[in-house]
């Protein structure tokens, strides 16, 4: 992400420059979608939530004060939109669940046995993430998968850094407990 580039585009978008905002979409849409996909069950609804987040961001960008980076403000809108959709679905079935699909690693590594181990660990990790409650899943997705800093993830969730760290630690422990049979140093114990 490029905060300086964002700043210029945001300034132009605040003046109503739609092309500038579309440039922000091109910079951030797929990463925001990656976050939302891990929070919303249905792939179609995840895309809808991503679109809604950008529509809301466009309509309210005049109120973006620049107290945080643009993408943390955008992620907060996206996370809230994902929450709104999962809440709407709550009475109709599972609130949140990850895709069952396991994507093969792009770099398969040295051999078939290693590929199987990676795929097994991936599947176990995905299932473990999917079993987390949103308040623990969101910090894990933002911090460990998307690579946001503690401060950035805390801003997205609108909580303090201490609370973010506490939730992240609990989430990691839950995931670690769920996947420990697939970890290299644990499997042979």
């Amino acid at each position: 992400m490029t905060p300086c580039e964002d700043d210029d585009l945001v300034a132009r978008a605040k003046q109503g420059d739609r092309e500038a905002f579309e440039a922000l979409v091109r910079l951030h849409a797929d990463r925001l979608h990656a976050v939302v996909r891990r929070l919303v069950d249905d792939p179609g609804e995840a895309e809808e939530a991503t679109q809604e987040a950008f529509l809301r961001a466009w309509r309210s960008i005049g109120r973006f004060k620049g107290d945080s980076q643009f993408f943390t403000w955008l992620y907060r809108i996206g996370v809230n939109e994902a929450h709104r959709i999962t809440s709407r679905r709550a009475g109709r079935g599972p609130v949140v669940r990850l895709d069952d699909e396991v994507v093969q690693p792009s770099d398969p590594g040295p051999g078939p046995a290693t590929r199987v181990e990676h795929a097994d660990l991936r599947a176990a990790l995905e299932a473990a993430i999917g079993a987390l409650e949103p308040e623990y899943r969101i910090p894990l997705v933002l911090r460990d998968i998307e690579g946001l800093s503690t401060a950035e993830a805390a801003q997205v969730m609108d909580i303090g850094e201490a609370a973010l760290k506490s939730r992240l630690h609990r989430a990691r422990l839950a995931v670690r407990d769920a996947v420990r049979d697939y970890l290299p140093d644990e499997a042979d114990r």
Partner: protein
Amino acid sequence: MMRAMLLHPWRFGHDHRMTRALASNFLDGELDQDRSARVAAHAHVCPPCARFLASLRQTITGLRDLRETSEAPSVRDGVIDRLRSEGQAPDGD
């Protein structure tokens, strides 16, 4: 001498609990120097904590690897289409 101090029951128990509670901060490099050194020293004399830290580190590495292998199709065009068809002008300040 140092090892004996680390293995003193009171110190060992305290450091053990601290290691479990602060493991994420330790692995993220977000502990101050004193506590980080204390966790590292405890893991040196406590095999269960050494394994605990190793497995947590592997878990975090595995989570980070998930990002690199995401192959979802781009949604950029869909977002831009929605903006062009439904996106009203931004609200004023």
